[in-house]
């Protein structure tokens, strides 16, 4: 099988170790996100928004680092990257076409009664448990 002609000694093990270190740092940041977010929140930027943006933003960066450097997509033929991003785009399309029906539980002329009731039941059960339990086993460890 043809080897990468322009690859062999371009990157020693040290380069990959560096990428790995960056990935681990990003991982730690994403775990700290929910802890730090309430302290950064201000105005209309709520804590949960910061958590989500940080968590998924970091995930995208990590994925890019793995794809470009570990999978070596940055030196692969371009159309492979287009193929893979094309598939991702299809997933966005699927989401866009399906979410108005599944994510929303009401529209201009309709209402998903069963879902609304189920959400009600869930929220009520949680409120009751919270009122009941107080310092009960809400957390895992």
């Amino acid at each position: 099988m043809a080897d990468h002609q322009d690859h062999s000694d371009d990157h020693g093990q040290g380069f990959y170790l560096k990428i790995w270190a960056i990935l681990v740092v990003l991982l730690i940041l994403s775990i700290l996100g929910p802890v730090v977010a309430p302290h950064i929140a201000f105005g209309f930027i709520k804590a949960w928004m910061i958590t989500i943006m940080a968590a998924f933003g970091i995930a995208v960066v990590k994925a890019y680092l793995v794809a470009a450097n570990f999978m070596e997509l940055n030196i692969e033929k371009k159309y492979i990257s287009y193929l893979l991003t094309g598939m991702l785009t299809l997933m966005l399309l699927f989401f866009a076409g399906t979410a108005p029906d599944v994510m929303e539980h009401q529209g201009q002329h309709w209402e998903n009664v069963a879902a609304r009731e189920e959400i009600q039941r869930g929220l009520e059960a949680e409120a009751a448990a919270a009122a009941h339990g107080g310092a009960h086993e809400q957390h895992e460890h």
Partner: protein
Amino acid sequence: MSTTRPIATTRSATGIPTGRLAVWWVLASEIVIFGGLLGSYVMHRIGHPEWAEYASHTNVWFGGTNTFVLLTSSLFAVFAHHAAEHGDGKTAAKWLLATSVGAATFVGIKAAEWTGEIHHGYTITANGFWEFYYTAAGLHALHVIAGAIIMLIIANEARKGKELHRVELVGIYWHFVDIVWIFLFPLLYIAK
């Protein structure tokens, strides 16, 4: 397996070796499978605010440790590829073995995590969130196990200096498994 390799397999009109080209197409198909599942999860998660409470019971330390395990095993896979590129089958096999150990660790940690969660009553039929949690992480774990098995087979051949190009191919697959988890981690453990 006694079939000799056809001439067709050795041709490369695109310039990309056939095996690697095929792995990219495998990844393309896996993106839409996981994309469909995770997209469905996101839709439900956004539409069901009561899932936030259910989700708060996932353990970010288990999840984070597993993320670390996969990232490190990906590094090992890259080292294996590096060794194979230089024709060193024995070292490549060692690094692939290390990657497989990472896979086993991942599965082991997950088993411990799930056992705990099931004992707390968070079973797959408990509610919508946990359904998706076990299905998505479970499908991912199946891919981890399958990848580890394939990796061991390839490591065995690499040890004897054979089919070294396959080290890179299984590595690419493994990085994809890693990337899926990179997204599963915030979805299931951080977005509460």
